């Protein structure tokens, strides 16, 4: 398998067989270029008729409007195949939601204008070919069908795993939810039920990274991807400076008689500390697995790509401010915050 990949990789670099550690020349940009990529779109091994399927294309010309008036370029997955790059798309990318036990097809189409990308279903553990990691299998060039079975209910997310350091930062991710056989409204079989659901994917942007080409750095050029200096702090695609406090896509309104499930995803690279504004929070799951016993907390510290499923049963009405602090990876100092609210009537 690797022999084939090496040939493809060499072809991609213009047939050079003299690849070396440094100084291979710039990565260039646009649709070509790139080093150590493995374009392919093989047939799916053991393909069967799925229980549910999703089509994903690519957009690379999206933008996110920030509270300070600036807009920042984002990339992502479209709902539907293709994606010609002229239409933009939603950020985060559209959710994938399935039921435990289903066989799922995620059909990813990447055309030559949008090279190169994959989908890694983070926390889902399929075969090598369906894991979506370029250098262990291939980066999708054409259409590939990722086939997997949803074994465990819980909260996951999917993201691009090509030049991941850049592509995930650019926004190429979306929520992935597996409901138990009981359906939405129950976290997992035998687990708690809920009336209101929020998905908080908390991320940070270093806007200086957001003008790079898809293959930036892959040939060894120093493009600064070792240093993240974020200037925007985001909850599920909404600026956490002001908008997320009231934007109904993020902020929660519920009655005191209801139970809230917060599916919290650390979608950034920095550690985060989420403070629930004085509310007691029962953690029932993390990373798609039920805890042996739920734990009651008032804040959670997480690192990149962790998920926590939090059940909240407010004791009293009021407006609770939820604060996500983003922590420096050396000092743990707070270098940014995002806020939203839970309003209990």
């Amino acid at each position, binding site marked *: 398998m690797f022999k084939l990949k090496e040939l493809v990789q060499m072809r991609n670099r213009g047939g050079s067989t003299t690849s070396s550690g440094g100084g291979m020349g710039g990565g260039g940009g646009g649709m070509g270029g790139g080093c150590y990529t493995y374009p392919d779109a093989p047939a799916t091994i*053991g393909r069967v008729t799925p229980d549910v399927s999703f089509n994903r294309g690519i957009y690379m010309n999206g933008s996110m409007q920030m509270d300070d008036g600036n807009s920042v370029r984002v990339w992502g997955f479209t709902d539907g195949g293709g994606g010609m790059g002229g239409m933009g798309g939603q950020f985060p990318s559209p959710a994938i939601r399935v039921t435990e036990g289903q066989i799922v097809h995620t059909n990813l189409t990447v055309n030559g204008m949008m090279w190169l990308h994959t989908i890694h279903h983070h926390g889902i553990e399929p075969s090598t070919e369906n894991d979506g990691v370029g250098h262990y299998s291939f980066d999708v060039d054409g259409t590939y069908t990722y086939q997997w079975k949803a074994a465990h209910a819980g909260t996951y997310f999917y993201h691009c795993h090509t030049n991941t350091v850049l592509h995930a930062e650019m926004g190429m991710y979306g929520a992935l939810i597996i409901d138990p056989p009981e359906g939405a409204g129950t976290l997992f079989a035998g687990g708690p039920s809920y009336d209101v659901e929020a998905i908080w994917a908390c991320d940070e942007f270093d806007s200086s990274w957001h003008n790079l080409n898809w293959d930036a750095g892959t040939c060894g050029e120093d493009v600064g991807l070792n240093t993240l200096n974020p200037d925007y702090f985001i909850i599920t695609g909404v600026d956490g400076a002001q908008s997320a406090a009231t934007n109904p896509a993020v902020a929660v309104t519920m009655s005191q008689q209801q139970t809230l499930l917060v599916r919290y995803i650390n979608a950034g690279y920095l550690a985060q500390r989420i403070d629930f504004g004085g509310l007691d929070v029962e953690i029932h799951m993390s990373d798609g697995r039920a805890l042996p016993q739920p734990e009651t907390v008032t804040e959670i510290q997480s690192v990149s790509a962790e998920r926590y499923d939090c059940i909240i049963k407010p004791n009293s009405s009021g407006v609770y401010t939820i604060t996500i602090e983003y922590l420096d990876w050396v000092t743990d100092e707070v270098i940014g915050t995002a806020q939203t609210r839970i309003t209990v009537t």
Partner: protein
Amino acid sequence: MFANYIKDLNIKKLKDIFIMKRREFLKFGTAGVASSMLGSLGLLTWVPRAHAITINKTYYITDGFVAQVDGQDVYFRGFSNSSGALNVPAEPIIAQQGDTLNITVVNTLGTTHSFVIDGVVDSGNIAGGASKTLSFTVNNAGSYLFYDKLNAPYNRLSGLHGGFAVMPSGSSNELYDGSATFVQQYFWVTNDVDPVWHDAIRVGDTPTTPFTPRYFTINGRNMRVPGHPEYTNVDRDSGYATDTRLVGSVGDRTLIRIQNVGLCRHSVHFHANHVEWLAVNGAPRSQVWKKDTLNLPNNKGSLDVIYPFESPPDAWPPVNTGHFPMHFHDEMTQTAGGGFYQFGLATTIEFK
């Protein structure tokens, strides 16, 4: 004046050593990881004993350069297996509760260093050119780090560190008495490397620039991928190095003792299986959670986890073989020299 003379002398001496060590390191790069403590596959092997024994081990504090994937030579120091080698990290030690350790440290450099296991032993100063033998008994099972705590954190970051494990008495398959069990075990020692800081350490200065790591290592190496000339080179490619690459068949439950000597907090992400999270910073957890992503504290933080080598649960059709990554998910760590995605802190998990 005198101080400058000494400094100049040391620089000349150090320069000579660097040239020699670099040549010898390159030449003997593979020899550094071979020892009686390591099995033929490079992972830690252990046979339980009914009685405690005395373990003798000598480390030589040496230095030299290690070439990075982008061509930059970075200065390191190590607790090495011989005066002509540079081992970063040091060869790990595995002992059993009740054992007596006689550790001799030979400082071949001109600078003062130490050998410390927090809560177990502290050598105090070992002057340049001096040696010291430490005798101590180990009583508490678990995972430890030995390191040089002088000039903190610089000497530790420069490479003077290694893993130290104490097995429960008479046990071959537990982290601590009553823990979940395993059939094989590894040490992963991780580090964040700022070459500017390493160069300041080389000349005896205290780094003054903000910490800006450009290389991220697991047992001193980082990842190579298909198409790169060092791909599959066990001395250079952490995906193939025998002390990092997890190899097992279904059922080969594997203990990984992760020690983070670096300054950065990290996210550890396993593909293909969730791990059982047994301990953090040496403390057993009251509940064992199953996680695909874990919070690895910085500054000598640690995790002990078991990778269960179960059939990947979401594969359809089911599979029992394959290759998958373990990588840090704070993805800056997946770069080298500001680019080179895929050449960072990662290794391969092989279901054979």
